[in-house]
């Protein structure tokens, strides 16, 4: 019984950690620009696919990872410069459609460049799984959790200790005020997209050995990240992490205990339930509307 429960928990936490990383990416961009970036999943794909194809070309793994992250970063900046910035007057829905267009575009290019096959990435360390109380934990899961934790800590430090981080926070709270005190808000927006792209690609790389990677892996993972961010409360970092983990664990438990057919439906019902009672997610900011 315990082994079974633990097994579902491990599965849930691993995939949940991935969702959390993606959700953090959503949160960052949302905070800086109030845009929901539906192309977030593509950063994930770029991370995984670029690493795989570079290693296949003989580039050492570590270098390939660094290059893949840089590539995703460039893409993030390009997305902000060429797709979001020119349309700043546009409606929220219009911006959503622009990011959807961008995501289709990026996916299309990836498909032409890298083909349509699924690719394997080796585990970072041993292939031997770890056994805990009769449950099995993939060693790569530890990497996902570890990297996730490091990223979260790094983000916290970035936002509380660095001037740039504080500038992003300030912009998210009040764009005009931030501009008045000398924050270059365009720069901040670009930074938010950059960091978000880096986050996405890192998630894509650490999770690739578990999920495989292909040109279209970003669609569903990106969507799950959005779901996680919404459960946690858009704009809340803590919310993104909790939302991601909660979604992962609910999916795994539902698949194990309720019905594998309906596990996604269970996850989506959970979202509805959360939103019924907390219309701004678990940790969303409580805003009083001013009139």
């Amino acid at each position, binding site marked *: 019984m315990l082994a079974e429960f633990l097994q579902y928990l491990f599965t849930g936490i691993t995939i949940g950690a991935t969702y959390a990383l993606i959700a953090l990416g959503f949160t960052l961009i*949302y905070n800086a620009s109030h845009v*929901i970036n539906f192309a977030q999943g593509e950063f994930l794909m770029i991370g995984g696919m670029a690493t795989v194809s570079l290693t296949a070309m003989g580039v050492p793994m570590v270098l390939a990872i660094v290059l893949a992250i840089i590539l995703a970063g460039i893409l993030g900046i390009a997305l902000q410069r060429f*797709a979001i910035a*020119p*349309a700043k*007057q*546009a*409606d*929220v*829905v*219009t911006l*959503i*459609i*622009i990011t*959807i*267009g*961008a*995501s*289709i*575009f*990026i*996916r*299309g*290019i990836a*498909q*032409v460049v890298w083909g349509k096959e699924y690719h394997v990435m080796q585990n970072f360390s041993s292939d031997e799984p770890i056994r805990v109380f009769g449950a099995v934990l993939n060693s790569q899961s530890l990497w996902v959790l570890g990297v996730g934790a490091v990223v979260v800590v790094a983000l916290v430090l970035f936002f509380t200790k660095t001037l740039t981080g504080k500038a992003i926070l300030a912009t998210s709270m009040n764009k005009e005020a931030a501009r008045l005190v000398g924050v270059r808000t365009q720069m901040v927006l670009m930074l938010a997209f950059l960091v978000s792209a880096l986050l996405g690609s890192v998630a894509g790389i650490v999770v690739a050995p578990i999920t495989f990677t292909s040109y279209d892996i970003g669609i569903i993972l990106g*969507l799950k990240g*959005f*779901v996680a961010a*919404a459960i946690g409360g*858009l704009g809340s970092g803590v919310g993104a992490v909790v939302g991601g983990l909660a979604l992962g664990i609910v999916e795994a438990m539902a698949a194990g205990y309720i019905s594998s*057919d*309906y596990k*996604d*439906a269970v996850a*989506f*019902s959970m*979202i*509805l339930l959360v*939103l*019924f009672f907390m*219309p*701004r*997610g678990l940790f969303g900011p409580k805003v009083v*509307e001013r*009139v």
Partner: protein
Amino acid sequence: MLNRFMQSRLRGLVFLALILVIIPAFLSNSFQYGMVTQIAILAATVVGLNLLVGFAGQISLGHAGFFGLGAYFTGIATGTYGWPSVPALLVGAIMVGIIAWVVGRPILRLKGHYLSMATLAVGFIIAIILNNERALTGGPDGMPVPAFEVFGWELSSFARYSLFGLEIEGFEAWYIFASVILLVAVWFALNLIESPIGRALRSVHGSEVAASVVGVNTAKYKSLVFVISAIYASLMGSLYAHFLGFITPAVASFEFSILFITMVVLGGMGSTFGVILGAAVLTLLPQVLADFQELETVMFGLILMLTMIFMPKGLLPTLTAIVSKRMRKKAGGEA
């Protein structure tokens, strides 16, 4: 002023009717008729969705769920249980309306992206059910749907009819039928928008507080328009199922929901005729891009992105703005 309203409403409708009459002159085979028939059905769907998104300002990322429910209700009722088409279509729409009302009450309290999220979840749940209830829906492989039939008279793309001594092919008959449906759908939508109810809906978008202090029960109106747009989707889903003759859960999928909302935004939110253009463009684009082979996806994404960046208000509103600017300039030059 009021007369001008009336005139502009009717002018749009007449213009649309004229286009629908002229289109067949450019069609040379039943495949092309099939495409425009689908455009008409999808356009009527997004005319309904536009009431919700464009006029009341409530985003739905799950509308294909209602479309799919309508399609499957018709498929199951007529195919499996042998119901006649019209009762199936109506009962399906009533059922979907009730579902939309029940789900709509709580989720329409949500704002902005949270509402998108909730509608997305509703759409997903519907799609998952359609996919999993194999015994009823045929599962992911889909199910066949019989031809549309009224009092034993079948409307099939493959048949031949003689109408007032005029020989017409089945696909032409479908086109005529879908065109009439589209015109009726547009007429209803226009009537709704230019009315006290429509003003209340638009005020929910413009300023929800302003609406409420003059007595608009915003919750009620949001539910109302949600239900109306769901019924539009359900009815059109039923027709779509009859027309295609075969449906899969893809009709309820997230991708399809995104397609619908894209038709609205691309064509021009809040422009009834704009969203029809959006439906036409997005239905034809894959056909046109088919020649680009593997670059098809890239081109599609690029076109979508560029159009939205440079025409954030959508195709029709931007185009009419340009035209009227030109005309004004011309008039100014003459004077």
